[in-house]
């Protein structure tokens, strides 16, 4: 590179990644709204989930309808470690993500050669299997009542400083840091040569094979990566709720993350899934608090978006056409 690449301040300021980080960082200080710190934390966690999921849906074009399972497996793996093995933060968290990623990788091996309808059907059926395991294996998973009493421990360096994560705002910023790092990592992944191959598979898998790529291996990697971020989000969610419930594994929950991605326009823009997840969680929380049958409106909205604005909000704003996945 012959020109010194030093981004100017203005370029940094208009960078969406910076804007999103700044927006989330000042959120707790917004008068009246900032008191919803728990909802804010949930929004960031779902943004992380949706962003990771979009590696698979938006960039590789693979419609998984059972990703709630990997979110839930991460959640349960953390919960089980915490309840049965070790009281702490880092080890349960790392084990949760590791177990979630490994199981996703295992399922991915079976799914890597599938596409389209077969792929979608199988993801649904697998998620249902994991749901039943969580629901029935009382001794380990707590069955219907789930696992409770999963506390957030303090982090810090002994003798120097300590941050009590059980305080809402501290945990909010902890999640925010994880989110920002993940956002940067995911951005790098989808903009790398590896990410380009994923997009090539989305556009035309057969042609990508003929060029010489082992598309099954790339699809497997994409599936596993999305599972990694799903289980990370699941772990953070379990710590937010201090409990894990079998509902997180139910297949209807998997529809939520697909909806978020489509709603915001994750298929036309990297930041779409973040926008979608934020709107989705806020809208759902507000609506369900004053209307018992809010699902009627939610389901109808779902239908209207699919039929009339499949490119999502960012798709309308940027006037872009949907990508291959939406042809």
């Amino acid at each position: 590179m012959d020109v010194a690449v030093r981004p100017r301040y203005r370029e940094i300021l208009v960078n969406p990644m910076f804007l999103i980080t700044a927006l989330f960082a000042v959120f707790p200080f917004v008068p009246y709204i900032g008191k919803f710190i728990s909802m804010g934390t949930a929004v960031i966690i779902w943004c992380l989930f949706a962003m990771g999921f979009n590696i698979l849906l938006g960039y590789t074009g693979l419609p998984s309808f059972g990703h709630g399972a990997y979110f839930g497996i991460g959640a349960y793996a953390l919960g089980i470690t915490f309840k049965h093995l070790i009281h702490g933060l880092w080890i349960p968290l790392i084990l949760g993500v590791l177990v979630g990623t490994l199981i996703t990788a295992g399922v991915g091996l079976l799914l890597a050669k599938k596409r389209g309808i077969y792929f979608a059907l199988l993801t649904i059926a697998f998620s249902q299997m994991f749901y039943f395991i969580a629901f029935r294996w009382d001794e380990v998973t707590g069955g219907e009542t789930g696992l409770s009493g999963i506390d957030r421990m303090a982090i810090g360096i002994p003798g120097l400083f300590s941050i009590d994560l059980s305080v809402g705002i501290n945990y909010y910023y902890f999640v925010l840091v994880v989110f920002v790092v993940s956002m940067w990592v995911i951005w790098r992944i989808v903009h790398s040569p590896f990410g380009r191959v994923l997009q090539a598979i989305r556009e035309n898998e057969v042609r990508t094979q003929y060029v010489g790529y082992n598309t099954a291996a790339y699809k497997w990697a994409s599936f596993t990566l999305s599972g990694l971020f799903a289980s990370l989000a699941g772990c953070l969610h379990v710590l937010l709720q201090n409990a894990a419930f079998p509902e997180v594994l139910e297949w209807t929950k998997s529809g939520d993350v697909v909806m978020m991605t489509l709603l915001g326009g994750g298929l036309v823009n990297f930041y779409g899934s973040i926008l979608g997840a934020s709107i989705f969680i806020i809208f759902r929380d507000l609506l369900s608090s004053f209307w018992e049958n809010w699902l009627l409106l939610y389901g109808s909205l779902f239908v209207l978006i699919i039929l009339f604005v499949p490119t999502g909000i960012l798709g309308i704003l940027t006037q872009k056409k949907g990508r291959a996945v939406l042809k």
Partner: protein
Amino acid sequence: MELFLSYLVNGIVNGLVYAVIALGFTLILGVMQVINFAHGILFAFGAYFFFSLNRYVGFWLALVISSFLVGVMGILIERLAIRRVYTKNPLFGLLLTFGIAMALEEMIRMVWGKPGHSVTAPDFISGVVDLGIMYYSKYRLFLAGLSALLIVLVWLFLEKTPHGAIIKAGAQDSEMVMALGKNLPRVRTLVFGLGAALAGVAGVIAAPIHSIRPVMGTYVLMPAFVIVVVGGIGSFWGSIIGGLIFGISTSLYPGRFTDIIPYFLMTLILLWRPRGLMGEKSILEV
């Protein structure tokens, strides 16, 4: 031994009902390439319509009217929504019907309330019958007989009528069928109505042995997925065999982990024969 036999018979009866549900599901999937998430909720509507009609018009009329109404719902759903997404990615049909199912389930809660209801079997088929080796519920036998009859009727329709030929051809190559001057859009509407009516009739006849609840649709949708994956997408015999496998495998060993057995079977079949037991390579599996 006797216990085993009664479990086996129960499994076959349940399996036949599952087969009827999966048949409608696989028909819609095979012809339209739409994973119909609303299939389960149509099953539930069958049961609810029957619940409301049964006390006024009697069993048989309630059965016919309820199935017909669910068929009409299917046609409306196809005309108003699904018709618009045929040429697009399968994800669209899946999401669309997912949203429809969610809204319709909530509609059931608004109309019929959250708590469950129950209906009783009519007098002429209540009680038990002596099968020689054991006593068995008359209603369950009736259930099996009616399911088998429906399966035969669908088979005759697909194999012996011109409509059936167009449907099967449409599943293979829709462009060619249209080029031959057949009205494919109308055939698709018909198939959707038929598939919906099959779900509805299954809901009606299952109503007396289940409690009628808003979530009942969700509970039959998953078996339909597994049956279709196990049997092979778009295959008539696949859904019958898959339905029986599902019914028997969940009835033979009653216990906590029974629900998981079909999913393990599914995984095994996937590893050994990815297209499903009766699946043909040409349909949908790329």
